[in-house]
Structures are given as structure tokens and as C-alpha cells.
């Protein structure tokens, strides 16, 4: 009997611990990274490996990893440690001082600049490192080919009137008429950008969208769901989804997202991608960012499916 009692205790505690551990983990994810901030302050000495902590935008994470990998060949003594999670995570890390470079697929809000200034004494420094064409994805069997910003807004906005595919004039094979809205978690840079340019700055999203935790998850879910529509970076396009052409106004010119249409600004929902450092970066970080802005660094932007900065 005592053995059984022990087992019960263990199980009972473990049930409690599941919740507790979940909370702790969530709480620790911030303080964890605070231990490794040394990279910013350490002076790089000869022969020693210096590390750069690079946290943030999920849209940019593939790109940031490609950069980090290529940079090991340029400067073997520097290791760049990239982690994603979302622009919100990067900006939180920037404010809390737990990263050297924060990636963000949106510009800092004035309020965030203030917070950063209060914490570190100077304004964060902004580097524009490329563009991303935010693409609208549907399932390949969906007959729809183009959509306007107004229609997208009606689909996604709180109080918007479109929630059936038939309202857009298409009938899906299989007969499901409901539009399955796929969106992002509410602190993602992509979510913020989409809200600002499509849904309306002062409006909110319609509740009941499937809020995915990563750019890739959006494309993944759309590819498996015939009635779905979703938005995500062009770099995440796969063969299992269809990219819609987008127009500013209904009936206006519908534009395919691509490098030229992003650079000439004819594609309406393209956005710059940023890297932020808390104040003037130390030399090894500055060198890394300088390298990203060279032709070699910008070539990687294009190879990863994003849009490089226009050549000077």
C-alpha cells in the first residue's frame, strides 16, 4: 500500500508540476538569454571566439541563419547565434538588453524607442537590411487568382463583411464555402504590418482566425486546408500553396509579388526588414552589419527568397 501511496504522490505532483513547469519555462525564456549577453560588452581578443546574439523576427529567421552561416567563412572568429520567435521577442530582447542585434519585420514604435532609451541611455540604431513582399496564400485547388486590399480587409477586419468564398465570386471544389482565416500571433511583426496596411491602423482583426506561431506554420496550414487563406513572407512560399496577385483597389492592376514589383513599389504590401542594435554597436557587430549590406550579404537575401536593397 505504501508503494501505491508513493506512486499517487508522484503522479499528483507531476500533474501540478506540468502546469508549474509550463509557467516557469515561459517565465525563464527571457532570463535565460540574459545570461549570454556578454557578447555585446566583451572585447574581442585575438584567437578567441566572439559571439553575436541575434534574436527576433520569424519572417527573417531563415535569412538571418543563412547570413550567420556564410559569415563564418568571412570571419571564422565570430559566431552569430540566431534565434527566431517573432519581432516582438526581438524587440523585447532589445529593450531588456539581452541581445546584440534584434531582427524586426516592422519599424520600432515610438513608445518602444522611448523604453529602449530609458533602459540603455541612448536610442537604438536602425539598419534596413532588405525587403519582404508579404504574400497572400490560398490552397492550390482554390480558383481565386487575385484579390484587392479592400477585400482582404473585409475578410480580416473586425466587423468585415466577407466570410464566404462565394462573396468573392468563386466556388471551391468540395463545396466548403467558409473562408478559413489563417493569421499570426498578436505580437508578430507580420501581424502588426498586416493590421497597419490591410486591416486598418485603428481596427482590429476579426476574432476566430487560426493564429499560427510562425511564418512557416501559416503556409503549412494553408497547404493542408482547401478553404484557407493566409499571409506570410514571400520567402516561405512552397509548391503546395498558391500566391495571389494583389491590387490596391478592386479592379486595379493586380500585381504578383516579386523583386522588381517590390522595388518599384507596385506591389502594395511589401515592407522593409530591419536590424536594431541597442545604441552604437561594438566593432565586431558593426562589421557584421556592414558585411550584410555588401553585395555578398545582399546576394544571400535574394537567394533566401526575399528582396535585396536596391543597388546604389
Amino acid at each position, binding site marked *: *500500500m505504501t508503494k*501505491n501511496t508513493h*506512486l*499517487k504522490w508522484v*503522479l*499528483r*505532483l507531476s*500533474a*501540478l508540476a*506540468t*502546469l*508549474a513547469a*509550463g*509557467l*516557469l519555462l*515561459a*517565465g525563464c*525564456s*527571457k532570463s535565460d538569454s540574459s545570461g549570454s549577453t556578454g557578447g555585446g560588452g566583451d572585447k574581442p581578443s585575438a584567437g578567441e571566439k566572439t559571439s553575436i546574439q541575434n534574436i527576433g523576427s520569424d519572417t527573417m529567421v531563415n535569412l538571418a541563419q543563412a547570413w550567420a552561416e556564410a559569415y563564418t567563412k568571412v570571419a571564422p572568429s565570430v559566431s552569430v547565434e540566431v534565434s527566431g*520567435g*517573432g519581432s*516582438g*521577442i526581438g*524587440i*523585447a530582447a532589445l*529593450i*531588456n538588453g539581452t541581445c546584440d542585434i534584434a531582427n524586426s519585420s516592422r519599424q520600432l514604435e515610438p513608445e*518602444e524607442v522611448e*523604453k529602449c532609451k530609458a533602459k540603455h541611455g541612448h536610442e537604438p540604431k536602425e539598419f534596413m537590411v532588405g525587403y519582404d513582399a508579404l504574400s497572400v496564400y490560398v490552397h492550390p485547388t482554390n480558383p481565386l487568382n487575385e484579390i484587392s486590399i479592400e477585400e482582404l480587409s473585409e475578410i480580416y477586419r473586425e466587423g468585415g463583411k466577407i466570410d464566404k468564398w462565394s462573396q468573392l465570386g468563386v466556388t471551391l471544389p468540395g463545396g*466548403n464555402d*467558409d473562408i*478559413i482565416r489563417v493569421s499570426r*500571433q*498578436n*505580437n*508578430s511583426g507580420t501581424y*502588426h504590418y498586416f*493590421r497597419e496596411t490591410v486591416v486598418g*491602423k*485603428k*481596427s*482590429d482583426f476579426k*476574432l*476566430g*482566425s*487560426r*493564429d*499560427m*506561431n510562425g511564418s512557416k506554420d501559416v503556409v*503549412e*496550414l494553408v497547404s*493542408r*486546408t*482547401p*478553404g*484557407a487563406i493566409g499571409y506570410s513572407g514571400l520567402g516561405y512560399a512552397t509548391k503546395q500553396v498558391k500566391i495571389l496577385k494583389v491590387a490596391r483597389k478592386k479592379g486595379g492592376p493586380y500585381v504578383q509579388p516579386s523583386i522588381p514589383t517590390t522595388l518599384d513599389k507596385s506591389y502594395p504590401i511589401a515592407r522593409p526588414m530591419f536590424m536594431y542594435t541597442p545604441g552604437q554597436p561594438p566593432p565586431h557587430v558593426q562589421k557584421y552589419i556592414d558585411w550584410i549590406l555588401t553585395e555578398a550579404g545582399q546576394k544571400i537575401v535574394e537567394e533566401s527568397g526575399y528582396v535585396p536593397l536596391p543597388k546604389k
Partner: protein
Amino acid sequence: MRAQRRPIEVIAEKGIEFLIRLCGISAILFVFAIFFFVFREGAPMLGKIDLGKFLFTQTWYPTSLNQARYGVGALIVGTLSVTTLAMFIAVPFGVGAAIFVSEFCGRKTKEALKITIELLAAIPSVVWGFIGLTVMNVVIQKVFNVPVGLNVLNAAILLALMSVPIIVSIGEDSLKAVPDSYREAGLALGCTRWQLVWRVLLPAAKNGLLAAVLLGVGRAVGETMAVLMATGHSVNIPHSVFDSVRTLTATIAAELGETSEGSDHYRVLFLIGILLFSITFAVNLTADLIVKGIRKK
């Protein structure tokens, strides 16, 4: 007679005793420390927020530029709906398996089954979530012809599979605790095995079985990763098992990492933590009291 102990042995004995006691107390300390931490982070919001609105409205717009609204009604309903459906699936399976393992199967089958069930408990929840996202999503879409497979049913099936091991092992324990004299008496009266289980064993073990189920509920309420991936993560009051929902735990997991420390959003997430803590605490306490009830008998 053994020789008198050397002083060093006495000290070592005392030291070890102290260490073991510390281990025992530490569990309690940890629970209280966690509760204290969660409460400290969440409490400042209690004064600022209308609790009725927090609990009973369903507009969850924590990052709205227009007007931030923190209503977790839909999230509570989401958690409850997934947990309830999970228990409807898990309880018959779990209790059935416990009865089979304890009463019906041979020694070898019993060992094999117990090992397999323990293995089921060892699968990490993120793996369950992945199965939900890739396999079950498509299966549910095909079988039920619904537009999206990430929904209450998907998550409930996963949670059921995750809580069955707990229900089985504790359920089996409580069946084993029924004295053999009951079984002998039943058989002597000419009971069939079914009558024995239904009329004698289940009533005798009912408290233990109830505790097993409640612990399963605790597991299901607290689960995060699998439900984050399988529910569709959509703020929504479900009208059928094929609607997507969002749970309290998944909301914390998805959003806490991105809030800046001390912001309203951050504190509200901890308030959700307090809510969850209270729910699991109540469930565990009930289970505890029920188990105590058995012991007194």
C-alpha cells in the same frame, strides 16, 4: 551485539537525514515559490481590470492599438470544451484498460501492457502536437468532411491519449487495493466475472477511480504544447467539436515571450496563470480529499 557507532557515522546519519528531509520539503517550497512568483507578477493587474469583464467577455485583443481588451471567456470555454471531450474519450478507455490489466489478463500480457502504457506517458507533448498538426488534421478533414482539422476534436483525442496512462495506472492501483476476500466472496456466490467487476469491484474502488479521472483532468487542463498546435489557436466559442478554439495555457505559451516585462499584457497573462493554477489546484485538492476518503474506510 554490534559495536558502538563512531561519531563520524552518527554525523553522516544525521546529515543524510537532513538531506532527505530537505528533498521532501523542497517540493512544497517550489510550489509555494511558483505560486508567489505568478501571483506577484499578476496581482497588480487585479486592481486595474474589471474581473467580471476579464472572466466573462470573449474579446481578446491584448495588443490592439485602438483599445486593448482582455476578455478570456472564450479561452476558458476553449479549455473546458477540450478537457471535457478529452475526458469523455479517456475515461471509458482508461477505466476499461485498468479493469482489464488488473482483473482479466494474464501475467505476461499484464507486464507487456503496463510497459506500453508507460511508454505512452513518455511521449513528449510536442510530438503529440506534431501528430495533431500533420496527421490528425488531414484525417479529420477527410473522415468528417470539415473545412479544417485543427479543432476541439483533434486536441481532445490527443489529450485523451495523454491522460489515459495516468488514469490506467492509478485506476489499476485502486482496483488492486480492493481486498481479495471481496472477489472470493463474489465468486462463491456464483457471480460471473462481469457481475463481479460491475457489482463488487467498481463500487469498492470508486473513490480511487474518481481520483484517477480527476488527475487525468488536471493533466489535460495544464497541457500546453499539444493543444497549442492542435486546437487551431483561434479565439472562438465553439458550437461543435469541429470548431477551432484556443486554450488558456496555449495563450500564455504563445504570447508571454513577446510581451515586455511589466506591461499590462504581461500581467494579464500572469493573471491567466493564476486562474489556471486555481483550476488545477482545485482539481488536485478534490482528488486528494477523495483518496483520503478511501484510506479512512
